[in-house]
């Protein structure tokens, strides 16, 4: 029997399968492992950032800063590798620490100042983007042999698909994210916080550390996403990844996570990312459609999934009402 709590996840999965089947029936070449491998590689940075966004949205918040943090990390890496002799791994670690601390500070502001996450992360967005501009307004190329080694790492499928390192990093991030969300105490705390702050406090959830950790994770994953993005493009550019936060939010919603928090799956976000990637791949395959159809279709999908969520919430509320209504007289 299908549990109704899994329904949004199943709908997402069904949408993905249906979309893939439609694409494959129009263009049989889409079934090749090359397309699948590229789907993973091209959406790696977005996927990693979306895992962090899933946690934030599960906790009932929102993080608008991730696009800027990705750009900042990219520029930071490029400038550090250009101006110093630091080894890239060291620079990666430094970038991750900066991004994580940045997220933690935003979480602390949200918790201790009791301000809406929306406006705090908006300030974070301006700050990170501004910091990236201050570092460099031009695109800084990265030429380091270590980057070439990392970019050269891939597993070649017999039929020709190249599963690159960054796609693997994304899949690994999702797996870790799933375990953390569903199998650890911290994950349960995040769900509880998203379900209702008051209830969570009464249940004994440590609100401060959960909020701060959630935003730290989001910041840290945005940093990781920035590293992946710099590997993907071999450059750091302060104007890159504008609006990635919107794509990430869209992927999370399409993945079946409730934007009010407290309900959803990290795995759903993975399929949300794949659906969005699939739309883009289809448009590339078609060749006559223009790129702006991506935005319109994603907007439409977003709307459909929000409606679905709304319908489910109504259905549950109606059921609960009838349940309590019948229980009251007895």
């Amino acid at each position: 029997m299908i549990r109704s709590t899994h329904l949004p996840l199943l709908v997402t999965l069904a949408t993905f399968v249906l979309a893939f089947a439609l694409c494959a029936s129009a263009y049989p070449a889409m079934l090749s492992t090359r397309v699948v491998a590229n789907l993973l590689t091209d959406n790696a940075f977005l996927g990693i950032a979306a895992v962090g966004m899933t946690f934030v949205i599960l906790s009932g918040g929102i993080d608008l800063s991730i696009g800027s943090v990705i750009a900042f990390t990219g520029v930071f890496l490029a400038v550090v590798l250009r101006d110093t002799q630091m080894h890239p791994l060291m620079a990666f670690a430094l970038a991750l620490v900066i991004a994580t601390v940045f997220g933690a500070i935003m979480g602390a502001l949200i918790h201790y100042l009791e301000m809406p996450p929306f406006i705090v992360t908006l300030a974070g967005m301006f700050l990170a983007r501004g910091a990236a501009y201050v570092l460099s307004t031009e695109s800084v190329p990265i030429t380091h042999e270590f980057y070439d080694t990392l970019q050269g790492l891939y597993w070649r499928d017999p039929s020709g698909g190249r599963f690159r390192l960054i796609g693997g990093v994304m899949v690994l991030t999702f797996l870790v994210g799933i375990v953390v969300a569903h199998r650890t105490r911290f994950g349960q705390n995040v769900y509880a916080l998203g379900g209702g702050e008051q209830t969570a406090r009464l249940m004994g959830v440590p609100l401060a550390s959960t909020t701060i950790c959630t935003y730290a994770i989001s910041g840290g994953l945005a940093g990781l996403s920035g590293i992946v993005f710099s590997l993907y493009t071999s450059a750091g550019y302060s104007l890159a990844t504008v609006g990635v936060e919107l794509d990430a939010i869209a992927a999370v919603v399409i993945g079946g996570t409730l934007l009010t928090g407290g309900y959803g799956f990290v795995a759903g976000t993975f399929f949300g990312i794949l659906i969005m990637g699939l739309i883009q791949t289809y448009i590339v395959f078609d060749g006559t459609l223009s790129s702006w159809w991506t935005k319109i279709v994603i907007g439409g999908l977003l709307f459909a999934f929000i409606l679905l969520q709304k319908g489910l919430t109504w259905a549950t509320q109606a059921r609960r009402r009838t349940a309590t209504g019948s229980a009251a007289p007895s």
Partner: protein
Amino acid sequence: MPGPKSAILRRIAPQLVILAIALLLNVLIFPDFFHIDFRNGRLFGNLIDVLNRGAPVALLCIGMTLVIATRGIDLSVGTVMAVAGAVAASMVVEGHGWGTALLAALLAGGMCGLWNGVLVAVLRIQPIVATLVLMVAGRGIAQLITEGRILTFMNEGLIHLGAGTVLGMPTPILIWVTLGAVAITLVRRTALGMLIEAIGINERSSRLAGINSRVLLICVYLVSGLCAALAGVIVAADIKGADANNAGLWLELDAILAVVIGGNSLLGGRFSILASLLGAMIIQSINSVILLSGLPPEFNLVIKALLILAILVIQSPRIGYLLYMLRAAGPQPQPRPGTADTLPKRKKEAAR
């Protein structure tokens, strides 16, 4: 009426002070800042420029203030600007007059606002999510209208809206000042403002009190869409072209920032359009400081971020509570002879 007037003054005092500081900084960097010339039949000067360049954000923040007062938010205004600009440009390119183009743009903006309003008021979707849909899809629609190009036009009437003058005054200034005045009068001379505030404070109880919150909510988003459309037409007219990719990009954030600087709570309730408009002018004055001082414009965003942080700290309920506790607990442990003197002062502060 001295009573309400002094209340309004007290409400906008912090914004006036910040604006004065921002303008003072401008004067320090550029002593001729307040110098206004009358040349070639129009006013020239940095002050005029601030008022002129601030027009899009000022227009947006009129609608945004009302939306935020109902405890909502409208993320789509930037893309609605792009859509309206694209509609106006394509109408003019097809040979219609500027009046028809303006009407069509307003119609498009109104439709966008209506869509948002229906999602929020009828389908009961959270405002931030409901308007996100249009924010994502809108730019695609704008690109669909312009077919991905930057549509340029040479229609004098339409260009006049963005770059022309009326009696020496740039048209955008006249538009936003007039619209702001109309909105303030409409909201404050009738019960409309109070009803909107009631929805923001507690929608459920306002509905029980007989307010038609559904229609009012839709109207508020409609107004926001119309304001955004007007701003979009002005921006398009200013550059004589509709750029679907960049028109109004991130202006929704500037508009929200202006509303927040205006001292309006993001949690809804009491609002002041006048203070928001001052907030828009503060943002523009700060932009002008950065430009005039020769600082790289890259610092613009950093300074904006720090500004938001400072306002957040001031607005934070926790800090307010802390100050309240400090004020309440402060003088009591050491009652001095001067208590009689401090008491009225405390009362005055509390009243503020």
